[in-house]
């Protein structure tokens, strides 16, 4: 009943008569009658705008929204200031297409140039692309880039990389034929060069030939992948990963956190070739997991192999500065089956939002967000570990996220603490908690107050009693 089409019945009639046909039905005469849908779609008729809002509000109300959030695992409850929300919802940004006509798309193009600049600086690398779908897709594209330019399908990946991203990587490896070996975490940091037997997830083509049988370092690899901080929130020394990459000719891919990187070493400082990350914390709401923002930055020498769109600076015919998508010959619409990536629609609006958010925070604000988040984490960790039965999962240094064992299955604990109004965290998969079910991953942001943290610790204590 809500109708977004402008035509009146008279107009439709006159357009039909211009075409010399009688009814709209005849518009579809090229469709074989045998396959046509008789009787229309089996679904309710349209409803009015207020009715839609009513239904959607009912669905929204069926979620527990007001929980104080201690969950992270790649999605963080940061503040989104009014200015960012307002600018990012300007319909010129929201309702435009990919900037294929730069003369009328300077707004999006320039914002993307700013995004690329700021993300490259954050990552400590030379260039960044104009976004991928999410953290997982950035990881997949980075590994594809590394493997194809090194000509070696071998991938060593730390178990500290987000397990859901690793799953996505394995899914797509079935097509690309990567040979992935998982390196376990020991006390919160990666143990390299010693893949656990049975931990190889291999491609369909070469399932027998695992790189690096346990203990052995292969002569050559395509990519070495590590997260910093890792999924357990821990900081690990990446020099070993870097030298592993050097010895095997692999590219070092570092999964980083754009918030933490304002205070901890950047991927570039560790010598990464490629950095990938989840950009959601840069001004995008939790939104039940999307749309988020896949960040990919790299050294300059890889620029001609980068996936996705790149915006470059140029001039127009009058010599005025102007922005335009560039190195287009990498992309699928030109390269087709030879393209290294199939990405077309990306997450531009989330990248523009990130640029606005980074502008609002500036260097001092971003660092303050990171510091405030880690102070909250430190406080929360102290209170929780003071509770009988709660122990930290590792002794490695952490930033704004940390893991504990509580003695109670994590999913059960989360359920109990929710009754007191807290989202307690994210249950750790058994592969990251020594087969135990009571591993809980807890994150804090600059939004968490002392009172909330104290209330949370008290709720956990009650739940464990």
């Amino acid at each position, binding site marked *: 009943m*809500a109708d977004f089409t*402008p035509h009146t019945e008279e107009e439709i009639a006159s*357009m039909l008569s211009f*075409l010399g046909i009688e009814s709209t039905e005849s518009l579809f005469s*090229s*469709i*074989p009658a045998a*396959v*046509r849908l008789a009787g229309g*779609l089996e679904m309710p008729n*349209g409803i009015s*705008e207020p009715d*839609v809002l009513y239904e*959607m509000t009912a*669905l929204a109300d069926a*979620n527990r929204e007001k929980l104080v959030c201690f969950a992270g695992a*790649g999605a963080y409850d940061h503040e989104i200031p009014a200015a960012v929300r307002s600018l990012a919802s300007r*319909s*010129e*940004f*929201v*309702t435009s*297409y990919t900037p*294929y*006509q730069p003369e*009328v798309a300077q707004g*999006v193009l*320039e*914002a993307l140039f*700013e995004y*690329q600049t700021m993300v*490259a*600086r954050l990552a400590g690398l030379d260039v*960044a692309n104009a976004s991928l779908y999410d953290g*997982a897709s950035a990881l997949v594209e980075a590994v594809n880039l590394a493997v194809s330019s090194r000509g070696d399908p071998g991938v060593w990946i730390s178990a500290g990389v987000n397990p*859901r991203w690793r799953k*996505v990587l394995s*899914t797509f490896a*079935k097509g690309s034929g990567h040979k992935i070996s998982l390196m376990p975490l020991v006390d919160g940091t990666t143990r390299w060069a010693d893949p656990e037997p049975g931990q190889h997830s291999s491609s*369909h083509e070469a399932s027998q030939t695992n790189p690096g049988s346990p203990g052995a370092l292969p002569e050559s690899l395509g990519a070495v992948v590590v997260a910093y901080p890792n999924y357990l929130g821990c900081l690990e020394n990446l020099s070993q990963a870097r030298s592993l990459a050097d010895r095997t000719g692999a590219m070092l891919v570092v999964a980083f956190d754009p918030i933490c990187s304002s205070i*901890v*070493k*950047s991927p570039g400082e560790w010598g990464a070739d490629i950095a990938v990350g*989840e950009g959601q914390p840069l001004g995008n709401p939790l939104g039940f997991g999307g*749309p988020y923002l896949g960040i990919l930055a790299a050294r300059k020498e890889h620029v001609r192999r980068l996936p996705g769109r790149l915006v*470059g600076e*140029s001039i127009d015919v009058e010599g005025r500065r*102007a922005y335009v998508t560039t190195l287009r010959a990498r992309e699928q619409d030109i390269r087709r089956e030879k393209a290294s990536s199939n990405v077309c*629609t990306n997450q531009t*609006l989330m990248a523009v939002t990130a640029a606005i958010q980074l*502008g609002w925070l*500036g*260097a*001092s604000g971003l660092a303050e967000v990171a*510091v405030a988040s*880690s102070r909250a984490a*430190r406080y929360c960790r102290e209170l929780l570990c003071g509770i009988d039965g709660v122990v930290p999962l590792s002794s490695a*240094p952490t930033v704004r996220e940390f893991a504990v064992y509580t003695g109670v299955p994590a999913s059960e604990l989360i359920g109990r603490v929710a009754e007191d109004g807290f989202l307690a965290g994210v249950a750790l998969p058994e592969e990251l908690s020594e087969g135990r079910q009571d591993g809980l991953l807890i994150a804090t942001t*600059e939004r968490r107050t*002392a009172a909330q943290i104290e209330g949370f610790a008290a709720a956990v204590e009650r739940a464990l009693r």
Partner: protein
Amino acid sequence: METGSSTVGNDGSNSFTGSSLKEGAGIHYGHGSTSALGGAPGGRAASAPLMGKLFEPTLLELSHPGRRAWSLRTTGVPMYPTEELIPPEHTRRQPLGLPEVSERDLVAHFTRLSHRQFSVDLGAYPLGSCTMKYNPKLCDEVVALPGLRDIHPAAPAQLTQGWLQLLCNLESALCTITGMSAATLQPAAGAAGELTGLLLIRAWHEAHGASRRRILVPDSAHGTNPASVSLGGYEVTTVPSDSRGCVDIDALHASLGQDVAGMMLTNPNTLGLFEESIVDIAAAVHDCGGLLYYDGANLNAILGVVRPGDMGFDIVHLNLHKTFATPHGGGGPGAGPVAVSERLAPFLPGPRPVRNEDGSYGWEIPSSSIGRIHSWHGNALVLARAYAYILASGGDGLRRIAELAVLNANWLRKRLNGVFEIPFDRPNMHEVVVSASSLKRAHGLRALDVAKRLLEEGFHSPTVYFPLTVDEALMIEPTETESPQTLAALADALENIVMQAEANGPDAAREAPRTTPVRRVDETRAARRLRLTADMEPG
């Protein structure tokens, strides 16, 4: 190179001339400058760039040391010293180099940028294959509901029943619309859906003990199709179109064989023509054991009229950012759910939202799942928009959308007949592809020139040079949300461009656009003197 001139644009002067820029001189990209008050970076709240008089300085150029917009919550959390939080060997030493601006300057900057940006909300956007229809504001309101927007994706099912119900309802609506039996909502865009579909094809054949190498793709297909095929580990066999613009059936038969895993097809195809032999095509592909994949980018034309499932397709991806009116966001986000027939449902990515026997909702991993393909559950807020759009439209509204989209496109085809060559001049579906080749022959004008000239008339240009099977292609998709008056104005504008070229020669079009924030951009220079960040010296 550095001339020491003031930061361009920030002092309000227009010293940024073509000649100085061509030498790469006169631009200062620092994070602030020491010039006197008034000329200092930051705070130049004039809207000159709106008039195309100046370019808009980047946020980095507007930076002024010490200025800031941010303020954070007072938390009462103990102020542990930072050295205690981060061990020295992990402390960042590199400067961050983010801009320092006031909130007022930030707002002014992005507002001015937005004024240099065309959008659906500003005017018709007849970009073929992209379905740039009006994006209802209602859906903006929906995704601003805190109960949807502020939910953490790891929150367990018992705390997110509303979201799970929404996703299940959307899945079932999409299955009804496509005639399929189950769907995954994880893919973040059409191309991600394609690759998912190819992995489903691979999993299906592997489960049946067959190893097949090739995927057939028509020559008129979108570039993401062949690119996805390669990433799926298959080889592309291109199937030519026949003289009517459809799949050449003889060539199809010649290409088929026991090593063919499947075929990708969009119907209507990228010429806006319905593949009339679809039933035969489906039979031929199935006969040799292949699966048929539907690229749903063009579904808008057939909503409620014919369903991919009924045409014989096994796997369908949808572009919710086309057919279901979710806004394109300047290039994304989208959502590319993949729906499949019953036999493929066990292979779908997981976890999937499901309705339990007791009426509650939960997650489930299909028995032979290919695995996860998104960090979380897909572009959830985009999915919510699409669901609201489907509720508002309903079965009757969706059918009307298809009718009016096709009516509009046919009206334009007939109206433009004689203005441009129309390579396949017969009733089309939601879009029409015309050719500027006669303009090229007569006046040396190209499709691109027509596109640029149309920008001056206040319309976004059609898609150009796609599909590759048409010389000097202009692909026009008006969508159902444009009025007959808008169509007439668009057609008049296109006709004027041609008449002007015929009367006065090609110069006006070649020089176009002249009234846009910038004029034609030097793409060669952008690639040769690559500058992708403010820190990159143009090489």
